[in-house]
């Protein structure tokens, strides 16, 4: 197995005047081809920061050190232009708030087209066909209509699917999904997770899946890294982490999850027996 992405000793700090506030410290991980790395942690733990730092999405106020290689090519220290060509092309991204991730003033089709135009040399007709294909692949029923719509006219789940489709469209070798299910309703959440599982099954693409939700991660992650206050506190295969977490914080997360799940299961079972006990 070859590593698609290899990150060593990544540190990110925020410059405030002369002070440096460390945000991410000494994080290292590998993503193998066709596998999924889950990054787990509460908000503010540095999960998203890590990925933004890798892709050069942080501005000058942040200082990033460490080393990283994507398909053998260094990412940190690469020129902004080189990183830009990677983003959206070889590395696709799916972000958290689908409702606010699209420019409200342009139609979906226009925004998809500008992305495709940036990375390919398709003609008008071919571009149109490609976009319809993408949406069909994402099981959107009326692709032509969706292309003509403005972002505010579509639901969060729909926009999230457009985002996933767009990330998949240029045959990336890595997709980074930053809390893709957090901001949408639970029914769409399930559908979105199905899309990711499907993508993973095809085995072409590696995934980095960032979430604060252990339940979601357990559906898809092969390896899991747990982050807490800017540090990687636990890592290993998903089963291993779930069963024998050594770190106190991770155990806390897992226990909580188990407690919620058992209550949930209890509630479901209680619901099956008529009336009594439904108060649980």
């Amino acid at each position, binding site marked *: 197995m070859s590593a698609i992405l290899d990150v060593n000793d990544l540190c990110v700090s925020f410059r405030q005047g002369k002070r440096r506030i460390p945000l991410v410290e000494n994080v290292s991980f590998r993503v193998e081809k066709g596998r999924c790395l889950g990054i787990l942690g509460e908000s503010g733990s540095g999960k998203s920061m890590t990925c933004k730092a890798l892709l050069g999405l942080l501005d000058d106020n942040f200082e990033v050190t460490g080393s990283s290689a994507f398909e053998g090519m260094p990412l940190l220290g690469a020129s902004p232009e080189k990183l830009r060509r990677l983003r*959206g092309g070889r590395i696709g991204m799916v*972000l*958290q708030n689908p409702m606010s991730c699209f420019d409200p*003033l342009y139609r979906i089709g226009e925004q998809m087209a500008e*992305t495709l135009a940036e*990375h390919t040399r398709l003609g008008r007709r071919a571009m149109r066909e490609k976009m319809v294909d993408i949406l069909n692949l994402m099981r959107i029923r009326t692709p032509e209509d969706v292309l003509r719509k403005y972002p505010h006219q579509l639901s969060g789940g729909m926009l999230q699917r457009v985002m996933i489709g767009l990330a998949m469209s240029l045959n990336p070798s890595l997709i980074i999904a930053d809390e893709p299910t957090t901001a949408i309703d639970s029914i769409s959440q399930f559908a979105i997770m199905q899309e990711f599982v499907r993508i993973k099954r095809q085995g072409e693409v590696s995934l980095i899946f960032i979430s604060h939700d252990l339940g979601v991660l357990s559906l898809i992650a092969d390896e899991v890294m747990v982050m807490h206050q800017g540090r990687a506190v636990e890592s290993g295969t998903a089963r291993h982490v779930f069963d024998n977490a050594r770190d106190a914080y991770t155990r806390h997360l897992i226990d909580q999850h188990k407690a919620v799940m058992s209550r949930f299961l209890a509630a479901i079972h209680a619901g099956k027996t008529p009336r009594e006990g439904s108060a649980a």
Partner: protein
Amino acid sequence: MTWLEHGMKNYIIMRLLATIPLLLGISFLCFVFINLIPSDPAEVALRIRQTPIITEELIAQTRAELGLDQPFLVRYFVWLWDCLHFDLGFSYTNPARTVLGEIGRCLPATLELAGLSLVYVIVLSLPIGFLSAVYKDTLFDRIMRGVVFATTAMPVYWVGLLLIWLISIKCDLLPTSGYGGFSSLILPAFTVALSYISTYIRLIRNNMLENMREDYVLYAQARGLKQRAILVRHILKNSLQSCVTAIGMSIPQLIAGTIVVENVFAWPGVGRLCIASIFNRDYPVIQAYVLLVGVLFVFFNLAFDILQYVADPRLRERKS
């Protein structure tokens, strides 16, 4: 698409109807204004006709003739009817001239002035605001912020005087004052524009910075779009959405703002006419000027409101 355009038409009609009470309010204010002045309009009218001896009887007769014995509201509507027919009465100081003629004579000069200052505002504040936001906290941005701050504290007339002294007297580049050709227009227009330029530099800069923090910018970067394309196609377009409306609504303010500058540069526009009329107590001219600016204000508000509505897909949707 047809239902959408239908909604748009409804919105425009609604908006047009909403201006009617506002216009009535403004005209009523103007009418009240002329009725508050201490002198008797009948007496004034007699003097305009150069009647040699003004007697009480004659005044009473003229009152009836002019409809001044009618109730207040009736007179208001008669006056309004005249206004709608562009009949604004005669100047007190120069009875041979109609108010409309006076305004019409001076308006072109003011419009030239306001027009060129609008050009200045757009040409200077857009790029400077844009660059200040893009190169935030660099030397350029700092200097521009200093300039913006200084200009908001400077009295317009003082800027005008300094410009006359520096450019016209010291360097002898442009005429000091008066009306004659394009070269005499450059300095006054710049003086009018200056305070608006700094307002809009600040507006555009802040708006751009606000937009830069939006999620759609992050996603545009994540899609690998070029930084320049993101700045121009996305951030600038979104910022302009609100700025264009603000600039459009300030057009009547530009026209009103020429008053001071016209007096500094001896520019023969309506602003100078207005100040002269105040000194001469030529009330109908002042009234017409106030009415003119008020109507312009309402009109431009309306026009740019509709423009914004047409340009923003979100608004279009919501209102219909």
